[in-house]
């Protein structure tokens, strides 16, 4: 291999690697390190315990080592944390129990080639193209208390009997989950359409010849044969539930809104505004990181297992 080729290869590998290392993996690992510090973002982080650097009134304290105190506070003393965990879990549950089966059902019906399936596919897929910010805005018209579609239709649009879908902390999470599922179902549908086409049609025919019903054939033959897609859908579902942020931000106007606490929103709240809590925000980031490593590992195992065994 010539010297010139070596330089070419070094650049072709090196530039992407440098970007990925600097802007993805360095922050991902730094978030772990920062989670053991207390830092308002002023000055730099000193490698000294916080107890040995007393804070002087009026002078911002530089960063210092805080041990596991952030974790202690997150779990015991941060009012948003457990609601956020609960809401993320509900988000995931709704995606798995409602949006995913719905998307799968759409895909199965469309895959059977019923009349108009091409139009159905296009319409159900439309929300996937829209940004979540935009989805949040157009659904506000549906949920608007005085003028909105739902309240007007059900006759709850008078000041005396309004339903505040997006403001009421018992309702707003569910209202947003309708919006999120409206998009997610179309996404899942497209993934399963690809999956259904990859299933060997002779498998299905053999099952039908053997006297299995359509439903039995799907659950016993087609669904297991789609294992790779099932895993992709599962991973996408978990990751999307952890990332949920845009809809909440648009709906609440960027301010905390009771009923809509989420881990992703909590992380962001600690770096914006006057008082930055870099260490505390990082601790919440680590919690997200640890949870997300589960689906990420599952996906990597399934995607790369085969190649490892080839080596």
């Amino acid at each position, binding site marked *: 291999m010539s010297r010139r080729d070596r330089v070419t290869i070094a650049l072709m590998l090196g530039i992407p690697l440098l970007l990925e290392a*600097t802007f993805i993996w360095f922050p991902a690992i730094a978030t772990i390190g920062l989670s053991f510090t207390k830092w308002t973002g002023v000055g730099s982080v000193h490698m000294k315990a916080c107890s040995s650097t007393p804070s002087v009134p009026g002078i911002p304290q530089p960063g210092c080592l805080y041990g596991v105190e952030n974790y202690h506070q997150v779990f015991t003393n941060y009012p948003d944390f457990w609601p956020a965990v609960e809401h993320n879990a509900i988000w995931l549950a709704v995606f798995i129990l409602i949006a995913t089966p719905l998307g799968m059902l759409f895909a199965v019906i469309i895959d059977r080639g019923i009349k108009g399936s091409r139009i159905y596919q296009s319409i159900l897929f439309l929300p996937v193209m829209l940004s979540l*910010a935009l989805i949040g805005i157009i659904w506000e018209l549906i949920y608007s208390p005085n003028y909105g579609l739902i309240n007007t239709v059900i006759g709850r649009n008078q000041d005396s009997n309004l339903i505040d879908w997006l403001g009421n902390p018992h309702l707003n999470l569910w209202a947003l989950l309708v919006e999120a599922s409206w998009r997610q179902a179309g996404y899942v549908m497209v993934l399963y359409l*690809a999956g259904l086409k*990859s299933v060997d049609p002779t498998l299905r025919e053999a099952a039908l010849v053997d006297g299995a019903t359509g439903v039995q054939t799907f659950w016993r033959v087609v669904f297991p044969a789609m294992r790779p897609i099932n895993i992709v859908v599962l991973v996408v579902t978990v990751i999307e539930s952890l990332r949920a942020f845009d809809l909440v931000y648009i709906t609440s106007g960027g301010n905390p809104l009771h009923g809509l606490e989420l881990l992703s929103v909590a992380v962001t709240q600690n770096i914006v505004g006057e008082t930055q809590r870099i260490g505390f925000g990082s601790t919440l980031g680590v919690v997200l990181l640890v949870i997300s490593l589960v689906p990420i590992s599952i996906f990597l195992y399934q995607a790369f297992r085969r190649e490892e065994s080839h080596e």
Partner: protein
Amino acid sequence: MTAATEELMHPPVLHRKRKRKSTAGSVAAQMFMIVAVVLWLTPIVFALYVALRPIAETNKLGYVSLPHHLTFENFIQAWKQSQMWHFFLNSALITIPSVLVTLLLASSFAFVVSRLRFRFNIPLLILFTAGNLLPQQVLITPLYRLYLAIHLPTAITGSGLLYNSELGLIVINTAFQLGFCVFVLSNYMKTLPVEIDEAAIMDGATIWNRFWHLTMPLCRPALAALATLLTTWIYNDFFWAITLISTGSKRPITSALANLQGQFVSNQNMIAAAAMMAAIPTLIVYLVLQKQFIAGLALGSSKG
């Protein structure tokens, strides 16, 4: 590449005739799909309807009422008052370079790890693939500090920092999407026959020639599908722009919608009009390149 992706990349055969004809089942399926489609279209059609009606009329009659006037006035006013062209320009300045750079870097990296014998192929691919699956919020706190710490000449970024600059958004969008594109392109390149390289090696072609003149033209279908996906995703990005840009006027259109919402707070009709206009580029992609978009998603999920 699986048969499924093959089918999606080329004209798809959707209407496979089934021998079995269960009439009751078909009727139920049709009913179900019609209800679903109506429900799915309602929010979009309703927003468009609100955007087309004057605020004076809807204030009196509510949104759910028959129209007396339909007008584009809300669109015109929203466009003028918020200087929307400026936000569209920001989006173009961020999206186009991000897509091109991501595809160039991802394909060159994918070429080395999939077409050349290289010892660390698998660990490198895992590093990139996993990086793309991390929730953005895991990265944001240190990234935010990193962006404040990287100083650049004001001629390049305006802010003198990577923070609050368009370049900063190009960098993070590129870095964040690299993983997915490397994963898809390396899988795609592995399916290309080895023979195309052998003749070139005999002729003494350089690595760059083998990459740029031999491999890249064969990757066109995958590159087209990825370009469609990336354009939509980066255009639709909200999180990076909200957290890494502090000056409202520097934001691309998707995140600027949050500010417009505040600006037009008493005029929902104008917000609806602005939102509809912000959707136009993605709707063009949807109408013209829907097949490419779906093919891209299929490529991303076909491995395993």
